[in-house]
């Protein structure tokens, strides 16, 4: 049976990162994506979960990560939400810039944007919501990235 919508509330731990990745891979497989797309989706979710656990909630045991999947007729919609201070979008580096190329971090959101069809980041004072969409069979009506 295919679940159309499911949501998880998870602790701010490394185990959550691995669980999020595994769950995303399973959901993507159920949605009919091929192996390469499954890898991209699960990696995007892993990177989103890493940001939520490390940078958003900063491993705070009192803060949770919410992970939600929704399967629509055309899309797999994935939302990762943390309870941190809210991501400062102006401080997201361009990891391809020459000055940043050899930095050891700062590639997570870049990879998410590379692997998903639509990526929206909604920071607020009560946390950051990362919304990612992968078109099930490629929906040309949508742009690569939605305005934030």
């Amino acid at each position, binding site marked *: 049976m295919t679940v159309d919508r499911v949501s998880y509330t998870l602790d701010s731990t*490394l185990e959550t*990162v*691995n669980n999020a990745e595994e769950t995303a891979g399973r959901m993507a497989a159920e949605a009919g994506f091929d192996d390469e797309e499954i*890898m991209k989706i699960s*990696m995007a979710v*892993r*990177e989103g979960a*890493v940001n939520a656990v*490390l940078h958003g909630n900063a491993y705070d045991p009192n803060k949770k990560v919410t992970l939600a999947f929704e399967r629509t007729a055309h899309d797999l919609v994935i939302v990762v939400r943390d309870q941190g201070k809210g991501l400062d979008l102006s401080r997201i580096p361009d*990891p*391809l810039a020459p000055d940043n*190329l*050899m*930095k*050891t*971090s700062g*590639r*997570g959101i*870049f*990879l998410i944007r*590379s692997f998903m069809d639509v990526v929206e980041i909604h920071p607020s004072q009560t946390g950051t919501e990362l919304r990612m969409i992968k078109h099930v069979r490629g929906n040309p009506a949508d742009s690569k990235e939605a305005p934030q």
Partner: protein
Amino acid sequence: MTMKSSTRQVDGVTIVDLSGRITLGEGSVVLRETVRDLLSKGQKKILLNLGDVNYIDSSGIGELVSAFTTSKNQGGELKLLNLTKKVHDLLQITKLYTVFDVKEDEAAGVKSFSK
């Protein structure tokens, strides 16, 4: 799920055979400690064999960059061997493929180090 690391010596070059996942947490730590240990022992010609690394995340990419930079700063050389398609593609889209010295053949990789 974990990463394994083993080392062997070929003509003065240390080949590090890695398998598993280089990701945030254990995998990244294993790589970091392996490279740090080699450099501290004066083994500064390092060929990282990634042929059995089936997954790497942004933290793992960062760890490869760190290993490369640390080796270089200590007068060493660190090269990559046998990239899987996944790792190859990741290094391409992050523009790191041309930064690393990537080898496809172990014997040629060993010979490529300065004597």
